[in-house]
């Protein structure tokens, strides 16, 4: 009797966990809508022949390629971390998370130095609507990545303290969804903003 109650309880716990993760998934999807609005603003303001300086003269596609690979690499190392999480290898999880953090930090560092360089050259957000849209879109993505980095840092500290439990596994699932989502948004950022802008 007692045993059965425990099973029911466990089942209920699992169900509510699944609902929590679904809720986080819905948050990710609403974030997609946020990015969708920023993308459409960017596209509307970037019609051919719009006044003001154009991105092409201020961005370096080789840097963007490196940024893309940094983000992709950090995404892959996070997958390896979550793979080890389900094998209960705490040290390896932490190692891969540290690598994920370093790749992500490299991405943010390159993006911020690129922004500073652009601003010095006169490609500032207050110059034209098109540039405002550019900084809002790419900046919002960069801000998401920065918060993701903070979250990874928290997980690196939290995992040895709490060990690998159902709770930390759930948190890692959230983080994985979030981190992956940022890489997916970046595909469209580099295609629509940088590659289309460079043509």
């Amino acid at each position: 009797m007692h045993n059965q109650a425990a099973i029911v309880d466990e089942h209920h716990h699992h169900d509510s966990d699944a609902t929590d993760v679904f809720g986080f998934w819905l948050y990710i999807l609403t974030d997609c809508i946020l990015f969708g609005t920023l993308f459409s603003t960017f596209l509307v303001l970037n019609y051919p022949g719009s006044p003001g300086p154009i991105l092409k003269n201020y961005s370096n596609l080789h840097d963007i390629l490196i940024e893309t690979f940094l983000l992709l690499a950090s995404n892959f190392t996070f997958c390896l971390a979550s793979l080890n999480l389900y094998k209960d290898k705490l040290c390896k999880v932490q190692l891969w998370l540290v690598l994920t953090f370093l790749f992500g930090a490299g991405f943010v560092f390159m993006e911020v130095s690129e922004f500073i360089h652009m601003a010095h050259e006169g490609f500032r957000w207050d110059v034209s609507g098109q540039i405002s849209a550019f900084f809002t879109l790419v900046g919002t993505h960069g801000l998401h990545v920065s918060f993701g980095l903070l979250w990874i840092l928290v997980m690196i500290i939290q995992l040895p303290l709490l060990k690998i439990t159902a709770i930390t596994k759930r948190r890692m699932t959230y983080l994985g969804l979030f981190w992956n989502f940022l890489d997916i948004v970046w595909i469209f950022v580099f295609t629509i903003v940088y590659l289309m802008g460079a043509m």
Partner: protein
Amino acid sequence: MSHHEVGQSDYGTGQKKLGMYLAGVISCIILTIIAFWAVLSDRFSRQEILIIIFSAAIIQFLVQVICFLRLTTETEQGKTNVMSFIFTGVILLCFVVGSLWIMNNLNYYTLI
């Protein structure tokens, strides 16, 4: 029953396998290089470049969704995830295409 046991803790995100991740990351690298190469080499016309980079982006998007996000329709939870995902896609399509259409039209008529 082993499948069910793995499914216990993955919240409808599918089984975790290294091979899938490796395939995902390699195809993403190839697609990214194709897109950048198409723009950087002066070999293609504007329209060709647009077709290449957008097909590369869409394929890479699908690869990431399948290999990394692990959206599957195998489990009940997975089905709910996919349904909400498609719903978001429809909403996104409506207002991105809608905004561009309206603004384009506006631009066209104000220029006359």
